[in-house]
């Protein structure tokens, strides 16, 4: 049985500085050659600063500690799948900003899988505010622990 009591639990707020070297590295990793990530002058002209790639908030993993990260240790790492991911953006996020993120367990539930037995779903929402205390973004992911190996 899953532990429903963790729904609503929040992690400790974590600080996430938005750094150019990380933005550039991330853009390269997802094969995105858009010059706004590589040319600060151009980025300033076109975007008011160097923007972040759409999925860049995934790098919050670097800034979270055991106290701020979602509770994943109950899952078997051999059987975890990323089911869904969602981002909403309310204000621009630019290099030089410092974000504060808070992760919250939005849901946990079980379902019978088609072929692999019981599956467990965990949904986590993270809200991000910037150094001006503006609400800039929200992310949500769903992780699935399958009943068998994920590539089978």
């Amino acid at each position, binding site marked *: 049985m899953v532990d429903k009591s963790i729904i609503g639990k929040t992690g400790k707020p974590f600080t996430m500085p938005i750094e150019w070297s990380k933005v550039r590295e991330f853009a390269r990793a997802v094969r995105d050659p*858009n010059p706004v990530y590589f040319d600060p002058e151009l980025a300033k002209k076109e975007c008011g600063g160097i923007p972040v790639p759409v999925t860049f908030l995934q790098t919050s993993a670097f800034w979270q500690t055991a106290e701020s990260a979602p509770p994943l240790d109950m899952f078997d790492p051999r059987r975890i799948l990323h089911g869904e991911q969602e981002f909403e953006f309310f204000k621009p996020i630019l290099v030089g900003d410092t974000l504060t993120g808070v992760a919250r367990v939005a849901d946990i539930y079980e379902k019978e899988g088609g072929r692999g037995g019981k599956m467990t779903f965990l949904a986590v929402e993270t809200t991000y505010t910037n150094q001006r205390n503006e609400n800039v973004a929200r992310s949500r992911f769903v992780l699935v622990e399958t009943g068998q190996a994920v590539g089978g």
Partner: protein
Amino acid sequence: MQAKLKFDTVKVGDAIPTITIDNVARPDFVRYAGASGDFVPLHYDQTFAEAAGIPTVFAQGMWTAGCLSRCLTDFAGAGQVRHFKVRFARQVWPGDTLTCRGTVTAKNEANGEKLVEGELEVVNQKGEATVKGAFRVAAA
């Protein structure tokens, strides 16, 4: 921000720019692990993958999603994306070739912004969907 998209000229049913990701390879997953901090070993550790009963390492879903999201910034401009949602349907393996594409499904205005919505997908060389998604971008 880099507003590229003219609200008045976009039509429901329009295709957004397609991105082709040729020859997906293991170094893509290693580079993404380093860039993102996603060190789930199924994506780069062959020994771990085999022990888990999987033939070889496969892409982080968010690597594929990151490649897909470029369709939106090419379409609407960096900083113009308001919503991006993906669901992972199938693994992406080394050697795959991916096509990232999308279609406009709605236009509306909210909070003083002109918004364009649509659906997204990534298909592999066999035509199978690996990622399905939805988007909302701001237009000028």
